């Protein structure tokens, strides 16, 4: 009763500029108006000036013929395709190097991070030196270094190194044979997908059974058999096609098989070695954040070392590791745009060419920004989901 009286009283006497709630709303409206005005000024001015200078605008150019060739592509592409397809080739090339890079970096970084904590003096010092050196050299320099190593040291295609029959290493790239395309491959892929689902179900079942009865099921071995066995079974059912597509020297270069270019190799190597040093430090910090008593307690319970790591240390370390690891994964993806410097046709490189051929810099830069924003948001989304899953559930 008394409260209402006071608030009635205040509503009547306190002017709105002294009411913190109303003031907050006014500030927000003002800020929004300023941002909107700045955006309107920039956009309208740019459009007006582009029109005055007779510069083409809009994204219509995406449907025009690109007329330029791209060195390597995951999908079929030729100079008679559109700019949209050329840019898509660039996006896929960026995804290719980023995805492989992130996977290899996490594995290598984890190994080095654990090596850094090793009780073996030499191993831990070597890991320490690796981390210090790689972290302190700019990644662009590392890329130039690896690229120069590749093109200066590898022989010409005619004198290519052949470590195994059918495998060639030259300054044109790393060529290796792949199975010739066969309808069986599609079904093998389907079989593998089915095997993945089966493996996941088996793991779930084994966990439930262990919780219920305490009996341990050899999940890893069983799942390995399923994942390998199912595709191989399908392959045998199709009559086990063994025809290989082997690279062959013809004229200037190898034809057939699959090739990885020196540009791709140098970019991947540079990015992985650089980022792995940061990941190693993150992994080390994560493991050290778990108090030593936890390990001792686990050992006192009679758990084997592998189980100590899997069941006690890692679940607690991961929640420290995942957030900074996410930002390293984003770093690697964004650093992959340095590919321009060593000639790998990534998205920025293709977009640069597009901008220059069409003259539409604003649209091109917008595409580049939107694309990297997409990559980063998707990576963050996935890692945040994983982080939530891994976070300690407080009871």
């Amino acid at each position: 009763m008394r409260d209402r009286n006071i608030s009635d009283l205040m509503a009547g006497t306190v002017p709105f500029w002294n009411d913190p709630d109303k003031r907050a709303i006014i500030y927000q409206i003002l800020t929004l108006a300023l941002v909107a005005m700045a955006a309107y000024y920039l956009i309208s001015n740019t459009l007006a000036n582009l029109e005055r200078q007779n510069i083409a605008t809009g994204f219509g150019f995406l449907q025009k013929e690109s007329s330029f060739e791209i060195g390597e592509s995951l999908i079929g592409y030729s100079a008679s395709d559109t700019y949209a397809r050329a840019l898509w080739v660039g996006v896929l090339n960026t995804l290719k190097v980023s995805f492989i890079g992130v996977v290899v970096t996490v594995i290598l970084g984890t190994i080095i991070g654990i090596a850094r904590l090793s009780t073996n003096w030499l191993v831990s010092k070597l890991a320490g030196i690796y981390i210090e050196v790689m972290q302190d050299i700019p990644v662009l320099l590392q890329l130039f270094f690896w690229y120069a190593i590749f093109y200066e040291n590898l022989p010409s295609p005619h004198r290519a190194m052949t470590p195994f029959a059918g495998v060639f290493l030259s300054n044109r790239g790393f060529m290796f044979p792949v199975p010739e395309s066969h309808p069986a491959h599609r079904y093998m892929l389907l079989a593998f997908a089915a095997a993945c689902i089966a493996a996941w179900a088996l793991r779930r079942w084994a966990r439930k059974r262990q919780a219920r009865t305490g009996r341990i099921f050899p999940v890893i071995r069983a799942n390995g058999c399923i994942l390998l066995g199912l595709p191989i079974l399908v392959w045998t059912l199709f009559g086990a096609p063994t025809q290989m597509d082997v690279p062959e020297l013809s004229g200037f270069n190898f034809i057939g098989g699959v090739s990885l270019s020196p540009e791709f190799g140098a970019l991947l190597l540079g990015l992985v070695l650089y980022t792995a040093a940061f990941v190693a430090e993150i992994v080390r910090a994560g493991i050290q954040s778990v108090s030593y008593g936890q390990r001792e307690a686990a050992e006192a319970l009679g758990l084997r070392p592998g189980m100590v790591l899997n069941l006690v240390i890692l679940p607690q370390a991961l929640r420290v590791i995942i957030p900074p690891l996410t930002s390293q994964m984003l770093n690697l993806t964004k650093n992959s745009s340095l590919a321009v410097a060593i000639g790998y046709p990534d998205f920025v490189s293709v977009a640069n060419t597009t901008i220059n051929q069409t003259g539409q810099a604003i649209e091109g830069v917008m595409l580049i920004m939107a694309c990297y924003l997409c990559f980063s948001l998707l990576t963050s989304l996935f890692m945040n989901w994983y982080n939530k899953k891994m976070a300690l559930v407080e009871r």
Partner: protein
Amino acid sequence: MKRIGLCVVALALFTLLAAPAMAGETLDAVKAKGFIQVGVNQGLFGFGAADDKGVWRGLDVDTGRAIAAAVFGDATKVKFTPLTAVQRFTALQSGEIDVLCRNATRTLSRETSLGLNFCQTNYYDGQGFLIPKKLGVKSAKELDGATVCVLPGTTTELNAADYFRSSGMQWKPVVIESTPELNKAFFAGRCDSLTSDISQLAGVRAVAPNPADYMILPEVISKEPLSPAVRHGDDQWMDIVDFTVLAMINAEELGITSENVDEMLKSKDPKIQRFLGVNAGNGKALGLDEKFAYNIVKQVGNYGEVFERNVGVDTPLGLERGLNALWTDGGLMYAPPFK
């Protein structure tokens, strides 16, 4: 590094575009600030490059000086902005430079969609292939399956794609952003061939570890009329740049050089009298001093002098006049009458 440059240019585009329209007013703006801002190549020997004393030299650089001589009567009233292939047109569009003299090829799509106008061509070039002699190739037709180093952001990329496509040959481009890095990869054998304008290939071969090991194949696969460019919509400024280049060509045709131009003032030939401003008219029509052509020839030279000084047979580039000879000598350099 280039990406940063690109961002800077994009930013400049946003901010500088806020400047008011300058249609018809480039000349006034240039006169007000007292010099001409010319966009040139960062380092293309013979066309636009700073020498070891920091003095800019080259055919394009001299074209820029000639414009300053025409406008101010003083060839030194010029400042140079080195630009990459990717930055060049944006720099012109945004008003950062007044004229672009940076071996830019005139094409229909550039002329129509980039908001600029090309002026009289100051070098007729064509694209070719540079190869190591030990490759044993005598013609570009034998390049099927070759790996070719290409400089990005140029018409070169398109021409090479067109050439291989129309000849039904396979190829693999290696596109590296910076010219020195690209050259290094080529010399180390990463590519079978390097493709660019022939004048540029001559420059690359001149800096090779052993120039005699390399040769330029005979095929010329494209037309590259390299021309200065100005912003679209300022016809007067375009006329000035146009007739500056034409004045250098006309001077050569009339036999006027930087040495004899003072004697030529006394010539009885009405063509020469009109050209050098002894008989007034031309200068006023362009909005310039009547002596503009005299100043160009006196301070920079005629086209032949500029050519021989920068790229001719006595320079490391060692280029013949070829298409760039006067029309009277079987070339393409032809100036309309100055009257």
